[in-house]
């Protein structure tokens, strides 16, 4: 290399997204937001940083440790947005508390957590999600579960038919929603009245599904026979046969609070089944799922799919969080991890090398008033068309053939009235005679339509993916 300068480095855990990657990211973002809008959710754009205290007193210890903190010029301690739910809760509690409920919000943006970069999660990562605020009914929990499923399907995950045909998306498997309820475990903990270390030991045993650790906990703890029975059964209270699991859990309940949690689960799952078979088929009940970002109080869930060893979406009910800012409201929400979906899409359909978003038509010629009015006419006639102007008059057919054949389904060059069309990876072909603007528009329209038809038949052939 003639140029020996080092590239300007960026900190660990963040990435530049550009060309095809950025285009895919933006289109996924738009698609997810569109799904949320279809369900009646409105956009919210929380600030990128807040007072650190806003997160500190509401997040779990792990999330607290992962805050990016810095000092504002007035000396107050700030933190980068480490979560979307807490800022939305703040907004609703302090400014929208007297607006009509329920309130539905959706967002898509970056989250910053200063943690070890771990499986599928960098320090800046992207989330798209919703918050449904002011509705305590099980129907609200069910809406969130089914919306998670619907949005993931819209994003191309686990589309029925594609996997079974074995075509294209072999890596993107079906979705499973692992659903738990923190009320059950929290009420059990309340019954057991354990020491702090006992609580930790039980939490770790259940969280790790570790029979050895659970056995050790039971040996070292004084519990009644009834209490032992629930604790020992915890890891087995999970599976797809959720009626059986909830019946068994019901028979083990030690308190009304535990029974309330089971009843709530039943009501939520019944509501999910009202949406059709798809939701019910995806459910996996897991009463040993006790992960908590710090504010969950009831339903919690994770969306899982074949091909990825960690969740692609998660969420839950948080009935106490909004009240910590003032006026309380029940609420439930979900967050989808965009980076993980993009990873799945890439793994499923390996694409050609990344490149800039190419134009469909490149117009060359003397850049005068006539030139620009022709370009403008082309853009106005076909809003979907990407038209680039060759401002520097550099147009060279041979340069473009190799590049365009790689990234473009079709490309037209219109140069001083002469028009050349490249289609389906062959050579540029000159169109007969000099074309007028309306002839070029017609030509572009024909190519767009026939390309759209081909794309509809074979989705993975879409050059823009």
């Amino acid at each position, binding site marked *: 290399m003639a140029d020996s300068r080092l590239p300007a480095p960026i900190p660990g855990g963040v990435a530049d997204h550009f060309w095809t990657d950025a285009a895919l990211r933006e289109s996924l973002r738009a698609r997810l937001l569109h799904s949320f809008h279809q369900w009646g959710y409105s956009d919210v754009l929380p600030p990128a940083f807040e007072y650190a205290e806003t997160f500190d007193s509401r997040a779990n210890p792990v999330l607290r440790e992962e805050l990016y903190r810095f000092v504002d010029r007035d000396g107050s301690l700030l933190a980068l947005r480490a979560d979307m739910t807490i800022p939305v809760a703040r907004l609703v509690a302090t400014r929208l508390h007297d607006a009509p409920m329920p309130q539905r919000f959706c967002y898509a943006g970056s989250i910053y957590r200063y943690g*070890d970069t*771990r*499986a*599928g999660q960098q320090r800046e990562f992207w989330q798209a999600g919703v918050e449904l605020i002011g509705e305590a009914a099980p129907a609200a929990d069910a809406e969130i579960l089914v919306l998670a499923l619907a949005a993931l399907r819209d994003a191309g995950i686990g589309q029925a038919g594609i*996997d*079974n045909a*074995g075509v294209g998306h*072999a*890596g993107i*498997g*079906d979705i*499973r929603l*692992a659903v738990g309820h923190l009320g059950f475990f929290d009420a059990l903990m309340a019954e057991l009245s354990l020491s702090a270390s006992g609580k930790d030991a039980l939490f770790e045993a259940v969280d*790790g*599904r*570790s*029979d*050895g*650790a*659970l*056995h*050790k906990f039971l040996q070292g703890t004084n519990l009644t026979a009834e209490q032992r029975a629930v604790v*020992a*059964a915890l*890891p*087995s209270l*999970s*599976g*797809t046969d959720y009626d059986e699991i909830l019946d068994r859990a019901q028979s083990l309940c030690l308190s009304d609070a535990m029974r309330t949690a089971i009843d709530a689960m039943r009501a939520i799952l019944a509501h999910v089944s009202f949406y059709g078979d798809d939701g019910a088929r995806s459910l*996996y009940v*897991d009463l040993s799922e006790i992960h908590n970002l710090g504010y969950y109080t009831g339903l919690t869930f994770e969306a*899982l*799919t*074949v*091909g*990825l*060893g*960690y*969740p692609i979406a998660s969420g839950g009910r948080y009935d106490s969080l909004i009240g910590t800012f003032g006026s309380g409201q029940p609420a439930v929400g979900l967050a989808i991890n965009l980076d993980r979906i993009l990873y799945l899409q890439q*793994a499923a359909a390996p694409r050609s090398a990344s490149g800039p978003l190419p134009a469909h038509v490149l117009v060359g010629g003397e850049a005068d008033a006539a030139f620009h009015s022709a370009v403008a006419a082309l853009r106005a006639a076909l809003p979907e068309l990407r038209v680039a102007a060759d401002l520097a008059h550099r147009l060279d057919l041979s340069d473009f053939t190799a590049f365009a054949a790689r990234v473009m389904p079709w490309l037209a060059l219109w140069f001083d009235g002469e028009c050349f069309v490249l289609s389906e990876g062959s050579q540029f072909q000159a169109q007969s005679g000099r074309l007028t603007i309306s002839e070029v528009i017609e030509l572009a329209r024909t190519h767009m339509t026939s390309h759209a038809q081909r794309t509809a038949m074979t989705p993975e052939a879409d050059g823009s993916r």
Partner: protein
Amino acid sequence: MTSRSRKAPLVSTDPTTPDPTTPDPITVAPITVALPKGRLQGETLDHFAAAGLPVPGDFGRRLVVTSPDGSLRYLLAKPADVPTYVEYGAADLGVCGLDVLRESGREVYEPLLLPYGYCRLALAGHVDRPDYPLRWENQPRVATKYPRLAAAFFRERGVNAEIIELSGSVELGPLVGLAELIVDLVDTGHTLRANGLAELRVIMQSQAVLIANRASFRLRSQQIQAILSRLAAALPLDQPANTQ
């Protein structure tokens, strides 16, 4: 991930696979098990065979081997890498030592302790070192292959140890003046004694453990639970029974 070509022979050879006309992407692929190369490899295969699970006869030079009936796929990994393969879901299940798992800090499920690979992670020093509380140490130099566990052990006692990470022959540390203490696995203690060292504290008891990817455990629960219950049934009686 699951390619068409890998599915095809499986459907015809595995009698437990559901009706091949409706391939379910969640259940048709084999369960992948990450095995630790070396010390635990033989005992793990013996235990799997005793539990009636299909095991490969010989890996030869291959790193991935599918069992003859296609239901299990084994991959051979460096022991310290087993938790990584499992956390990312590159393997659904894995076997490693508890010491390696805790050192890795990886987020996986650990449903079953296995009855072999017993050893302890211990703090050792010169035989003639006087015994006094470790919290009296100022900033001891500790050589180890387990930097996270060693640092945490001292931190719990309010001591910020200087951790010197080595990748083997840790006993050399005190002999040549690199470190005054070591944290290492101890089985019989012969190596320590032969090098003029003595065990000072036990940091943790270790044994082999079956770990599972958190997503696979729930996505493919039927197959994984079937494997777990077979492995649990093959445990000696004094082992805690699998509660499932």
